[in-house]
């Protein structure tokens, strides 16, 4: 009886303590997931992997709920209270103390535990991440197709010539044999391919006719092909060694382009960021929750390149065998053309998108513009420069003002849209040695 009494008392008192919990619904895994993310648990813990802290899967089997609530909410106080398990755990992880989360209610802690309990087990590791491949950047070059077509055409001509030789020989043989009929029958080799009327036409007229019908359109097509396709890499979107997404970073996360392309305002090159720039964020951001406790395979590539071991002892995380990343270059100006980013971004005040297109929407970056000289020149002819606010252009600006006032040579200042502007072209921006030296 006493025993039972004690039990009842104990249950009652426990209920008293935990009433709020019991008053609510059972622990909610969805809620727990949100809390897990909001409190950045993932920066020290993974579900299936030991990181700064232990792997969390099955924690509800290893520890009691009470123990977990105390530990998670204030592990320091809990350790100081002398709990042997808590102190053992602390020693095991090299005295790396866990943060204190007193903002979490015990119920919320149990939600998190519920999330851990119910989180799906990792599927087989993904192996399909983009792989660096020596042919990775090769264009899907449509010109190969045309080479084949041309070869076919050449073979066709050879066949025709051979057929003609054969016919001629046949005819000579027939003539020798006195077979006048058959020798006369095909006096022109093409007659048998053509309707009778055409076949009887004057050969010269026929040739001119054929050229006009077939040759000129072909030449026109070839010309268009030559100037718009050959050597133009617009749309070139090679697979990169790391599947970096501009859509995510620039689009969704709204990182400033200049955060990574930091030299764009001072150098001719916007420069691909060095890995230390990546590590500013990705030392912490590992997306383990997205990859079931594993670090994202793409982020792992950054670590591999730096020979970085995120679980290494402090001060020794970095090994001695870093390997640089060979990005595939997308925008390839020829060596004889000089281009300077800082000129266009700082002086010209252009947006990145003016040339690179909607980069913030590109999952895989592609070459947006043709980078042909005509494209450069068009812009130099039509884009106004901010001459009024740059001391360098003071003379140019005052001359323009004077010209416009006195209406001398002033038509040049009106763009196609009727707006008054000073273009780079007016300041020698079309001259050869502005880009070629």
């Amino acid at each position, binding site marked *: 009886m006493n025993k039972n009494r004690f039990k009842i008392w104990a249950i009652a008192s426990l209920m008293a303590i935990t009433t709020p919990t019991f008053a609510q619904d059972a622990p909610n895994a969805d809620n727990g997931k949100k809390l897990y993310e909001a409190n950045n648990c993932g920066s020290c813990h993974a579900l299936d992997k030991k990181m700064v802290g232990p792997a969390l899967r099955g924690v509800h089997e290893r520890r009691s709920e009470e123990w977990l609530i105390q530990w998670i909410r204030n592990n320091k106080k809990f350790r100081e209270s002398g709990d042997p398990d808590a102190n053992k755990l602390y020693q095991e992880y090299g005295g790396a103390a866990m943060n204190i989360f007193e903002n979490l209610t015990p119920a919320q802690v149990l939600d998190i535990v519920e999330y851990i309990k119910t989180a799906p087990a990792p599927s087989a590791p993904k192996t399909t991440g983009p792989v660096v491949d020596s042919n990775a950047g090769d264009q899907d070059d449509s010109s*190969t197709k045309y080479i084949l077509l041309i070869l076919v055409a050449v073979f066709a001509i050879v066949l025709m010539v051979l057929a003609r030789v054969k016919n001629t020989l046949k005819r000579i043989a027939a003539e020798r044999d006195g077979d006048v009929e058959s020798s006369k029958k095909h006096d022109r080799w093409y007659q048998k391919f053509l309707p009778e009327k055409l076949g009887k036409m004057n050969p010269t007229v026929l040739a001119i006719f054929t050229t006009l019908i077939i040759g000129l359109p072909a030449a026109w097509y070839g010309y268009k092909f030559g100037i718009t396709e050959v050597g133009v890499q617009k749309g070139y979107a090679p697979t990169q060694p790391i599947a970096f997404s501009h859509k995510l970073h620039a689009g969704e996360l709204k990182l400033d382009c200049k955060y990574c392309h930091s030299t764009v305002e001072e150098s001719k090159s916007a420069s691909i960021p060095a890995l230390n720039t990546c590590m500013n964020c990705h030392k912490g951001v590992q997306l383990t929750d997205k990859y079931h406790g594993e670090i994202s395979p793409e982020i792992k590539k950054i670590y591999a390149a730096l020979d970085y071991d995120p679980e290494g002892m402090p001060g020794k995380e*970095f090994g001695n065998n870093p390997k640089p990343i060979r*990005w595939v270059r997308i925008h*390839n100006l020829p060596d*004889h053309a000089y281009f300077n980013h800082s000129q266009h971004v700082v002086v010209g005040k252009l947006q990145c998108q003016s040339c690179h297109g909607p980069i913030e929407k590109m999952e895989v970056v592609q070459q947006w513009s043709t980078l042909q000289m005509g494209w450069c020149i068009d812009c130099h002819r039509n884009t106004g420069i901010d001459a009024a606010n740059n001391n*360098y252009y003071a003379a140019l600006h005052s001359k323009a003002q004077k010209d416009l006032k006195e209406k001398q040579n002033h038509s040049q200042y009106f763009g196609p849209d009727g707006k008054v502007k000073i273009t780079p072209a007016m300041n020698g921006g079309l001259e050869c040695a502005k880009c070629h030296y």
Partner: protein
Amino acid sequence: MSNNIKYWKGEEELNRDAQFLANQKHEFSEALPLEEVLSEDGFELNSNRRDFLKYFGFSVTAVALASCYKTNVRYAVPYLVKPEEVTPGVANYYRSTCGDCSVGCGVEVKVREGRPIKLDGSPDSFVSKGGLCATGQASILSLYDMERLANPLVKGAEQKDWTAIDSEIKGTLAALNTQGKKVVLLSNSIHSPSTLKSIEAFKSVYTNVEHVSYDAVSYNAILSANQADFGLRAIPNYRFENAKAIVSFGADFLGTWISPVQFQNAYSAHRRPTAEGGMSVHIQFESNLSMTGTNADHRFPMVASKELAYVSTMYNYIAKALGLTQIPVPTNSELAGNSIETAAKVLLNNKGKALVISGSNSIEVQKVVNAINVLLDSYTSTIDLTNYSKQYNGDDTAVNNAFAGLNNGSVAGVIFYGTNPVFNHNKEWSAAIAKAKLSVSFASSKDETAAVCQYVLPDNHFLESWSDAEPIKGLYHFTQPTISKVFNTRQAQESLLSWANALPGSENDPFKNKRILSQKQDVSPFYLFLKSNWEATLGEGFNKALEMGYYQADSNVLNTFTMPAYVGSVASLAPAISKAASSTGIDLVLYQSVGMRDGSSGNNPWLFEMPDPVSKVCWDNYVSLPKALANKLGVEKDDTVNIEVNGVKYENVPALIQPGQANNTVGLAVGFGHTHAGKVGGSIENGFAPVGINAYRFVNASRSNVISNVQITKGEDTYVLAQTQTHHSIEGRDIVRESNFTEWKKNPKAGNEKAATHIYTIWEKQDYLKDGSPNHRWGMAIDLNACTGCGACVVACSIENNVPVVGRDEIRLRREMHWIRIDRYYSFSNTQKEKFEGASYITREKQIAEVDDTDKGEFAHWENIQVVHQPMLCQHCAQAPCETVCPVLATSHSSEGLNQMTYNRCIGTKYCGNNCPYKVRRFNWFRYNDNDAFDFHFNNPLGKMVINPDVTVRTRGVMEKCSFCVQRIQESKLKAKREGKSMKEVEVKTACQRTCPSNAIVFGDLHNPESEISKLFKNERSFSVLDELNVQPSIKYMTKIRNTQNI
């Protein structure tokens, strides 16, 4: 007056040589071999329509197919961890010290993405003052020489592990120390305090080590004479900027003597005529026509072996005039007529502002020169022996003792540091080195001495090293690395310190175990040593001093010097003087060529390709003969001579008839004839023939550059020297203008009176010439008075603009690629007849013939040559003839006045080159990069690291020419635009201007009325070359004014 002078570039032009005249008619040395090709089998000149259509059809198809190429995948590899100070695409500049010779000029190194690509003088350096010589410019290519040693060599075999080598050497050194056997550390002249300190540390552990300084070209006589006369074994700091009268006996102080960049800068201070300050007088007595001689106001031929008589005669004239005791020798007034007396008068007129120097390595001569300078009060104005130079301190006696020691076994070990005596000493070192128990060389390549040493422990290139320098007492420079080590090399100082166990321990290394991500922050142990040496003096200021590249305790130190106590006497030299005056026979006068110097950069193609400032010969050394001797021997152009003296004989040495060469003397440059330099300079091992002959073999025991009584005979062979100057002809046109100071004072337009009459033009006026043009207009002014012809600009331009080296054979075919050349014009000055009377030039051809006839083989006028140097580059004509003839508009004009050359448009018709009146356009006959037929470093990945990434590397079949360094113009303009500065604040220095030690070149914006260039264009001395063509060049030259004396 100028119109009367007949200028000529070479004897063939003077004599209207048939071959020369034929060449002159053809712009290019070879016509297209059309006839030859067409007359081959299967080709007929009578081509028909069907053939034409066949070829036409084939070409169209081939071109169409060829354009369907598959684009290569290109990669971009960013830094793993970007160093904070590096911005890809933007150059960093670091101050350092040039280590190519012992002078120690302060330099500014341009570094792009961690690789040095250009050197220039540091404006704060008290030695270089912003200029740099051709040799210093070219030294950057030695860094990227594939033939440097990649690993240490032990008995000829590569060994990567330094610690094993160290323990072996330490063992041997310790053993030799206990045995009491001496070890000699034979270094070049070292003035780096930290290096000297590391040598001291080495010596303190191995007490048997003796440190001996050795200079390939000896300055021993000056050092010894000063020891005797002033009790100080040092070379003074010559202060040419204070000298109003300079007399030099055979010292090529603008080209090669002691510290030429410093001297050029100082010398040029008074070489421009000014109404207030006047102009200095420079009189040169010499045998070879040196670059310095070409700049002298008066130059007199001197038989070098009689130099003692010359200087003592001068002493006596001066002593007599001052009423002092003369040296008791009979006055020899026949020497050089009365030129010595006249020179003495000029010096006396400028007493207290005068300077007499001699390039001789004879102590007697130097003692007399010291005595003269004492009489002239030079030691308080033009010669500073208080803050003396430490640049050269070689001790010939000690070197000879070391050599003797090696041979007799008292010296059992030898360490060569920056020295190569097997190549450049007069004694047989290889046999002596073989006797040593320990022989170590710190040479960075397997040179002649290293080849016979047991250990070759390659030293870093100076651009990979930490060090300091004290070129002048109390004035310090610093050396900092601008690239991480290219090969497995180690600084020599570090080797010495580690053998002495004196390397600073890593516990002092503030960077120990420091890393930024995966990037280790290593420093060289010698950095720690250097820093600890300076900490006491500079403390926290060390980094600032490194940044500035220099340190001096007292900024006024150069201006405070006093007369040293003179204890010398010249009276006792009388017997020696009498003896010297009587010597006869032909003298061989060895000299350093301005590019190659003592030959230590013997594998540097830029230096070989640089034309000699006087003879304009590239790629060889040669015996320069006076006309009289050549006539006597029957030697003509392209002939060779055999030369023999003291048992040393070279046969079939190329000979050059050198105007200005003193009769009874011949000249020959040292520094050539390497047998272990490499592919470019010659390497017997690898089957590359030496370039030229090794003239160091002729040096005699007294280490004088003058060797008497040489035997010269005509050689059997012929040899065509690669000489650039006569590739063009002056055609009697008014290209150079000159006058003299007296005339100039009367009329600043003297010599420049002729104004061109612009008759008509077919061009429309260019926009930028019109009033109110809102753009720049770039122009250049070149002062013919300041230009010494040294050729630094030629090399600087090649480096800046990726100008290829073409090699000897191509230069013979007139295909050199230099964008800037320095035209050298000779004219006769008949000083023998009417000395010092400026008007007495030999003018018309008839008169020259007359003199030749009456001369009876003496050819005195051939000894008395006047020279004008004129840098010639694209003149960026406002109305450029090249532009109108280009069928594809590959060359056009910019609104800033630049004549633009667009390589990607050029189809190589060469019409522009034909139509250029200045002949400054160069055609790429071959693809010079990546082409093993042109094995001059641009065909390997390491050599290509020196290429300027902002300038296109041209391919075969296009024209190229000076662009006015348009990449620099664009860079400066962009900087101004970014910062919103006004156009007037755009500062551009072209590569040639930046390196010019005498500031002869000024570049700037003519639309800015306050700019220096605008002022110079209005100067009375300025003229345009070939003004009569009305092409309106953007370059003006300043009339050459000689300070000829009318005493």
